[in-house]
């Protein structure tokens, strides 16, 4: 095996040297440049631009604007990678059933009580990060992962039994995640459907009025812009991510007794 290691080390070193050379020779442009790529400038100028609505996402935050509007397709399929991964995990562990009474006392009383106090605070922080995604840094995935880690933390601090007893079963998480995903899907084709119904031109992932299509999502809520579809995307994505990650972790952290029950139950080979 020594030869294999040497070969690997040499090829890895070659890749590294090549990359270093490209960086040093300015293949990626000057290092720490003063000017901006023109495309980036277009995004920055257009992310919130009420004077040129057809190119704008009407979001104060450029990253969220790109993530959910200019490159909404990427993000949609990114969500579906997460979806496929969770489907894959439940496929690998299929046949499991969460059972109560296997035991587990969780951590000490002090940690439990502290986590109880933290619970609403982290939840509201996550929701706030998600729903202000078009105004301040953050967005659906960030908020959703806040909530997901909270659920992971709960299942570790209080034990799985406790969480499942309080109604956080995999069935419910699956339902919640489906609501989120279908919400994302519905938001992405909402204006297209409206356009088809009204017989006018419209695009998939359309947000506000574009060239050749006058349809638009509501742009203001009270005294702040909503970024059209962005607030809906953020909301549903947060739901889908939180429920999905929690579901995957729940399945992964099944106790051995539960998993062994699911294994070897005579699935057909070949």
């Amino acid at each position, binding site marked *: 095996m020594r030869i294999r290691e040497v070969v690997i080390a040499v090829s890895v070193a070659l890749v590294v040297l090549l990359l270093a050379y490209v960086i040093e020779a300015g293949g990626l442009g000057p290092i720490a440049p003063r000017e901006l790529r023109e495309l980036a400038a277009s995004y920055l100028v257009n992310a919130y631009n009420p004077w040129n609505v057809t190119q704008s996402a009407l979001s104060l935050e450029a990253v969220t604007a790109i993530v959910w509007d200019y490159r909404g397709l990427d993000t949609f399929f990114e969500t579906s990678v997460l979806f496929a991964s969770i489907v894959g995990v439940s496929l690998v562990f299929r046949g499991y059933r969460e059972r109560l009474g296997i035991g587990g006392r969780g951590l*000490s*009383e*002090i940690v*439990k*009580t*502290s986590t*109880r*106090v933290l*619970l*609403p*605070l982290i*939840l*509201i*922080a996550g*929701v*706030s990060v998600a*729903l*202000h995604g078009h105004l*301040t840094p953050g967005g659906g995935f960030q908020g959703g992962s806040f909530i997901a880690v909270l659920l992971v933390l709960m299942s570790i601090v209080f034990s799985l039994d406790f969480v499942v007893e*309080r109604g956080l079963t995999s069935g419910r998480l699956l339902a919640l995640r489906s609501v989120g995903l279908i919400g994302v899907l519905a938001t992405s084709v909402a204006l297209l459907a409206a356009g088809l119904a009204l017989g006018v031109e419209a695009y998939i992932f359309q947000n506000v009025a574009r060239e050749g299509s006058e349809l638009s999502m509501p742009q203001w*809520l*009270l*005294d*702040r812009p909503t970024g059209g579809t962005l607030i809906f995307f953020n909301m549903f994505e947060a739901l889908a991510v939180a429920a999905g990650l929690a579901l995957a972790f729940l399945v992964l952290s099944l106790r051995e007794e539960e998993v062994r029950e699911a294994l070897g139950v005579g699935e057909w080979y070949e």
Partner: protein
Amino acid sequence: MGRLLGYLAVFAMTYAFYVVFTGAISVFSLAIGALMSAVVSVVVKPLVIPGELRASDLARLAYLVAYYFYYMAVAEVRAHAKIAKTVLSRRMEISPAIVEVPYYVKTSYGMTLIAGSITNTPGTVVVQVDTERRLFFVHWLFATTFEPGKAREAISVDFERFARRIFG
């Protein structure tokens, strides 16, 4: 009534945290926050406040603010000065020991407040808690006594006075 009060308390805590956290000055933020805090409080209330709540319980929470100032201004300063002096001295004079410290509050929130206060002052850390015999096992860096009663005098008696007023 008691249940509703519980929801209200959770809502108030959540919403207050939200307003401070977002520094909300727009109607949009305040409205969304109110809505979402309501949803959150409905979801988590059974976990945060399992039982019922009386109006007088809420009034006692005002002591929490007073306690915060006392704690930050007095207890922490004293403990920090001591640990800084020890760590930066040439030969560190420490006498580590794990001592029993009894407590007499009844609720788990009161217990956690005391334990948290003990742990958060450098020099004492709660290693283990026995909720049946109502004992903390405290790792004490500058142990002067191994006797439970005296250790309580030295470590937690001030915290407990406040904790009993706040959480009973």
